[in-house]
């Protein structure tokens, strides 16, 4: 691999559509690493100072850590994997060049490897502080990330979501029974093999439409068709639902509902934000026909937001169902709705900023990171973290409204800047 090719991969992955791709890619990655290390050390320090109890049952702590590992590692890699499309111009170009197969594979691995490194820079100090007494949890978190990457590429998203869910469920079940590490290694092999089938042998079946709408509903709901018929959003929705079901099942099974109460809903908010940041990228960054050929920017944003609400409604449902016995319904619904609204709007805002297109790995990563980290950072930065949960609903609604107001400003700014360098 030549340095020119490596730079081409880096710039198309992390600084696509920018004025100075090399400088931008370098700056963005440097900022990501610095932020990841800073946040990781900061969180590790907070955890150390909080004095974690040492007498917690290993099985549920393990299940908790592993689910978090899947969500954090898996989610980021899922969104990256979804972007690693064969329709990517650079991938298509490279496939026509006389390069060895190993170089082609290396080219495909560079962006996720860098993102994995950024994620590890954040996670390593946190995991070290936790001092978990069992090794398999680490392995499973890594296997979950690898599995997520394989699952996210290729075809048949619904089948892959099912494979992911079954794998995760089985792994958690084994973990709670303190099986030796070899069992997990053996377990991962058939799942990885099964998951890779869709990647290596793409389905040759013709593209089928999932749902149709009556003609009179099209003006208001056409974006829903766009969402449910697009492979990227199908993948993202399938996996967010699978992850939500896994988390809800774990909470119900290990009876963890009382531990954090409505606080568990942050998990579904993370899923919502990560999926929502991908919605804007379904349309082109500039000169989007969805804007210009239809009813203009206001119509586009209204249609997009209306359709994206589905993303905010579906993921929390399993969690709300298992938390209802432990939390008053009014508190759960008020807090849950406000949090989901904020997650949705933060996701759409991050999407409006980066517009992560198919194959635009860097934008995908930065948008997912911005939207999800904002959910954790905002309560701390604005100081409402220390307030009672009932006050959080108002704060999250304010966050949602602020993001909602910022989105058209960003889109208008982009329209005015189009092709004027």
């Amino acid at each position, binding site marked *: 691999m030549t340095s020119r090719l490596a730079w081409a991969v880096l710039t198309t992955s992390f600084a696509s559509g920018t004025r100075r791709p090399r400088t931008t890619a370098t700056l963005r990655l440097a900022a990501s690493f610095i932020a990841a290390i800073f946040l990781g050390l900061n969180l590790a320090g907070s955890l150390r100072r909080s004095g974690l109890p040492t007498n917690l049952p290993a099985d549920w702590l393990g299940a908790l850590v592993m689910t978090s590992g899947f969500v954090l590692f898996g989610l980021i890699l899922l969104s990256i994997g979804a972007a690693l499309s064969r329709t990517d111009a650079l991938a298509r170009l490279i496939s026509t060049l006389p390069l060895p197969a190993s170089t082609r594979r290396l080219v495909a691995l560079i962006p996720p490897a860098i993102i994995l490194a950024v994620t590890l820079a954040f996670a390593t100090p946190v995991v070290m502080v936790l001092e978990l007494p069992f090794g398999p949890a680490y392995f499973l978190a890594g296997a979950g990330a690898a599995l997520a990457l394989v699952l996210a590429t290729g075809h048949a998203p619904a089948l892959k979501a099912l494979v992911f869910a079954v794998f995760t469920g089985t792994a958690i079940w084994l973990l709670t029974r303190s099986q030796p590490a070899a069992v997990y290694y053996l377990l991962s092999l058939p799942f990885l093999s099964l998951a890779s089938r869709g990647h290596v042998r793409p389905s040759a079946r013709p593209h089928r439409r999932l749902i149709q709408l009556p003609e009179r509903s099209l003006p208001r709901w056409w974006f829903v*068709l766009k969402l449910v018929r*697009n492979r990227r959003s199908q993948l993202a929705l399938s996996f967010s639902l699978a992850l939500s079901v896994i988390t809800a099942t774990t909470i119900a099974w290990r009876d963890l509902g009382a531990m954090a109460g409505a606080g568990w809903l942050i998990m579904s908010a993370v899923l919502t934000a990560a999926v929502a940041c991908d919605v804007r990228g379904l349309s082109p960054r500039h*000169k989007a026909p969805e804007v210009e*050929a*239809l009813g203009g920017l206001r119509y586009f944003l209204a249609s997009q937001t209306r359709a994206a609400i589905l993303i905010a409604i579906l993921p929390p449902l399993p969690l709300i169902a298992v938390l209802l016995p432990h939390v008053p319904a009014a508190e759960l619904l008020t807090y849950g709705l406000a949090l989901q609204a904020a997650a949705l709007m933060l996701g759409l805002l991050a999407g409006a900023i980066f517009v992560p297109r198919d194959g635009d790995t860097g934008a995908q990563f930065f948008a997912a990171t911005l939207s999800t980290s904002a959910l954790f950072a905002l309560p701390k930065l604005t100081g409402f973290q220390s307030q009672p949960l009932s006050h959080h609903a108002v704060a999250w609604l304010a966050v949602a409204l602020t993001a909602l107001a910022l989105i058209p400003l960003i889109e208008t700014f982009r329209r005015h800047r189009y092709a004027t360098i």
Partner: protein
Amino acid sequence: MRRAPALQVHDLQVRRSRNFALNVDSLWVDKGSVLCIAGANGSGKTTLIEAIVGLTPYQGSIRIMGRPIDLYPKQAKARLGYVPDDDQWFVPELTAAEYFALLSSVYERSGVSIRAHMSKIVQHTADRLKFKAFDQQLGSLSHGNKKKVQIIAALMHEPQLVVVDELRNGLDPLAIRAAEQLFKSLSARGVAVVAATHDLWWAERFAAEIVMLDQGRVILDAPTGTITAESGSVEAKFLALYGAARD
């Protein structure tokens, strides 16, 4: 008093980079006329088209049917049909039928036309272009069929100015002929057609007037008949002008 032309461009400036800016002092397209914008690669054809259809910011004045598009974008766009040279210019997840229905509802809501009438135009235009893939998702259509969808979508609301970027790209010879006849018949009914192309042979056959651009400036604006009478062909004039410009 002379009636407003279909398109009127005055002191237009679009800056795309430090090295390139489009500067058009004046461009006038009457109703029912067919004008081709020709020029070498990078001469500013698509930039001019994008400014006319409101896709790119500009300085100066562009009027469609007498209305400035920056002041009356909705009214101007209601009178404008645009066929881009971009095969992603639609919502790729929708079927052709759904896309036309969606456009109809948008136009109907804007008071441009009524849906039943637009359905008839869609069917009529599709018949002429031999387009049948109404139930197929737009993203999965062939290159030529995507172009046909763009032509149908551009004409369904009966615009008074149609702007076409590289009409022939992607179309087979039969479809090109059908599209040409379609645009000629529209022109006969008073619709102005502005087409950007680098195919000078086609421009000579198709257009009544040719505008040539070089490095963002108009270097020729003349009737096709005058050009061919003076130079033998539009291509010969183009080569002579570009040769002179380079020298």
